[in-house]
């Protein structure tokens, strides 16, 4: 078991024939992901990486039965691509592209929600079910199969966390990079109950950062609904106010969205909160030995 994706998930790639799309589709195929085709307007009918290319997501879904789309289109076209996927009946869109305008994501997410499509990202490493299915740009080899679910706003902290968990002798069930933009698709609050319900997942690592209040919402949710141990790290304890720290959404505005308030809320909800990402692995080990 796992959440959202597994070895049977059929995936298409939007922005399939571009440089990034091609490189990462190849990596995903090598990992074992069932990529069944891709979409690039005006290249329909061609073959790429031995797979069919379609002009529209609609065509791709009809011909391949894909339920998930991995999106690599340039930032200005992300909103359009997400809405196209939702319109074509895709169940989950994984948006890797960084730098999509916020206004576009407002519209796209509202439409996706209306159509019942889940979205991961944008500006994220994607999702991986260890040793089964990788939909994204993460290095697959560091994710050993196991019982820890991972949710992270940051790409490299996802790798850092997964690597430590595996070095402690554990492994990953599914890891989801949710992205650090001001408006994102699935967040902690939607993913936590999926991990809670997944019999394979024994503990959950959540990695957050400054800005917004998703971690605060997660804390309230964990308190009421999550029985599995949760280990959390919030990046940006030393970040100055009013400065954007790399991610578009990582900014303390006024006095809202600080690491301190998020860490407090999570602690109050019974979560093991570590002050350095270097402690994630050890904390997971301790949480599971209780």
């Amino acid at each position: 078991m796992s959440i959202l994706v597994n070895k049977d998930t059929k995936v298409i790639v939007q922005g399939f024939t571009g440089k990034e799309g091609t490189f990462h589709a190849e990596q995903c195929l090598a990992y074992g992901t069932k990529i069944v085709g891709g979409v690039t307007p005006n290249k329909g009918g061609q073959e790429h990486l031995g797979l069919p290319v379609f002009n529209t997501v609609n065509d791709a879904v009809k011909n391949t039965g894909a339920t998930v789309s991995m999106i690599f289109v340039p930032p200005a076209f992300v909103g359009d691509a997400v809405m196209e996927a939702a319109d074509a009946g895709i169940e989950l869109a994984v948006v890797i592209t960084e730098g999509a305008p916020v206004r576009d994501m407002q519209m796209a997410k509202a439409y996706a929600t209306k159509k019942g499509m889940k979205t991961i990202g944008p500006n994220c490493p994607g999702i991986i079910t260890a040793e089964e299915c990788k939909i994204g740009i993460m290095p697959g080899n560091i994710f050993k199969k196991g019982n820890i679910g991972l949710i992270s706003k940051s790409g490299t902290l996802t790798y850092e966390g997964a690597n430590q968990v595996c070095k402690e002798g554990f492994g990953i069930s599914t890891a989801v990079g949710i992205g650090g933009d001001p408006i994102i698709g699935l967040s902690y609050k939607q993913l936590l109950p999926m991990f809670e319900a997944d019999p394979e997942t024994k503990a959950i690592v959540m990695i957050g950062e400054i800005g917004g209040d998703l971690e605060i919402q997660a804390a309230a949710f964990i308190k009421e609904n999550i029985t599995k141990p949760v280990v959390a790290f919030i990046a940006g304890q030393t970040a100055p106010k009013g400065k954007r720290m790399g991610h578009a959404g990582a900014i303390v505005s006024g006095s809202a969205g600080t690491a301190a308030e998020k860490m407090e809320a999570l602690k109050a909800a019974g979560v093991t909160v570590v002050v350095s990402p270097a402690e994630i692995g050890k904390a997971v080990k301790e949480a599971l030995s209780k």
Partner: protein
Amino acid sequence: MNIHEYQAKQIFAKYGVPTPRGIIANTADEAVANAKELGGTVWVVKAQIHAGGRGLGGGVKLARSLDEVKTLASEILGMTLVTHQTGPEGKLVQKVYIEEGADIKDELYLGVVLDRAKEMPIIMASTEGGMAIEDVAHDTPEKIIKVAVDPAIGFQGFHGRELVFGLGITNPDEQKKLISFASKLYKVYMDNDAEMIEINPLIKTGSGDFLALDGKMGFDDSALGRHPDIEAMRDLSEEDPDEREASEYGLSYVSLDGEIGCMVNGAGLAMGTMDTINYMGGTPANFLDVGGKANAETVAKGFEIILKNPNVKAIFVNIFGGIVRCDRIANGILEATKLVDVHVPVIVRLDGTNAIEAIEILRNANIPNIIPAVDLADGAAKAVKAAKGEK
């Protein structure tokens, strides 16, 4: 990206959002000519910098004669204005905005920002104009009215009614004027991919008209590509030169006041590295995300920018190699040290794909001030030690 008040007002004017008339000046003589052109007997001379609190800092003054316009403009132009938002170093005033005097009866607050929890813009209004909105939110939150506008339906009549009744405006003519004002401001926000608009104060004049006496706008950097007119308003002198230089090379840099320079791939890990240094008893000198493609060129640029800061006593390079293999990054770092004179200890932690080979490469290179580390904790600890001058 942020713009000046006078530029925000130019955008407002395009959309019919009422503002007092004004003209921008670069010199005291221009200021006088502008005041003459505007006519009247009272003018306001306003320093143009990207920070709030200009009035309190002495950057906004009332002039009752053309001579006074000249005197005040000469005083304000070239002054270093310190406000609660500039930091103690202040900001140099290079332009003044000459505006006609206004008949102020009431001061309100009106703003539009993205509500991240609701995932849509909200219009914020308050009767407490002229005060810092953060203070109003803290002391008297009930005096702030928030109306969320779903972009799918846009600004409707009911949004306007929620605003005016919330503000206690009962005169039907004034209600109509303020609703029209807010509706146009919402359009300014959406059309231009603004991140925030703040009008503080929005004034009601003796004759019951509403005017934007101030104007502050920030934009979504990701959307600037489709707004060349707004991109053209960028004032580079308002931006940190090091942050700007870094961004030209695809690096994301923020300077801090500590001693350990940080070079990391990924924003989250970069913040996590700063936090770990702090946890181990050191102080980070900067945030620096070299992005997904750490190579010799980006690493060399990173060293160069970090070393401009004289407080830096050690550098911690923390890279989690994913798709990019660590052995390649190790070679990149060695190459970078040939391009830039790195005179402080550099602690290098490479983890991920081919990490063991990478550490071998660094060891074999035998460069005395490059110290390999095996993981994040080890690297941070070594960096803190090195910054303190310990081995």
